[in-house]
């Protein structure tokens, strides 16, 4: 069953996509974070450019870091951002 997923972006990912967040109806056949990025890349050229190299991106599902192979499950929020640079 598809479900609503909130996508949030930070740093240059946010600037290049041109949005801070958006709500998405996550398709049934999308299981992992990586698969969702592929699905989005097929929808819009902005995603194609930003999601082209997953090694430059980091992900958090419901506020916990995950890798691109992580299962989305029933998560409510996926964050996509570059490696962190605080401190």
């Amino acid at each position, binding site marked *: 069953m598809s479900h609503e997923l909130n996508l949030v972006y*930070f*740093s*240059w990912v946010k600037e290049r996509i041109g949005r801070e967040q958006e709500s998405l109806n996550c398709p049934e056949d999308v299981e992992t974070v990586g698969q969702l990025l592929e699905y989005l890349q097929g929808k819009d050229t902005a995603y194609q450019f930003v999601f082209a190299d997953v090694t430059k991106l980091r992900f*958090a599902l419901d*506020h916990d870091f995950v890798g691109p192979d992580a299962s989305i499950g029933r998560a409510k929020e996926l*964050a996509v951002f570059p*490696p*962190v*640079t*605080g401190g």
Partner: protein
Amino acid sequence: MISITVQESDFDSGLEIKRLATRGGGAMSSFIGQVRGDGKLVVLELEHYPAMTEKALRKIAVQASNQWNLHGITIVHRVGRLKVGEQIVLVCTCSDHRQAAIEACSYIMDQLKTVAPFWKKEILQNGTENWVEERQSDLEAAKSWRD
């Protein structure tokens, strides 16, 4: 006791250290990070992921508490627009002995650099804006605690 604060305004490091000192113990260690004034930097803009930041910082502090015998940990991290010389972050640890306090403080900073959701953007004199990239040395420092 773990105290985590994320704020735009400046902090009083002396006050924070004194407050933690009331927890007892014979050793306090602290680190203050500030905006480096090298190059042509005018402003450092710090963005964060509000819904995740405190959770990520608390997780680091709990990990430190599990590894060292601590009476308390204080972490203060600023966000927003910061000028050269301004304070960015304070980490303070309190323990019975200096080695635990110093090591835990160092551990927290190393982890913070790699798993706390903050991003820095440099704004230079000529108006150029650059997102700061992760440093290999920071990744190695964070990893070294696990080896």
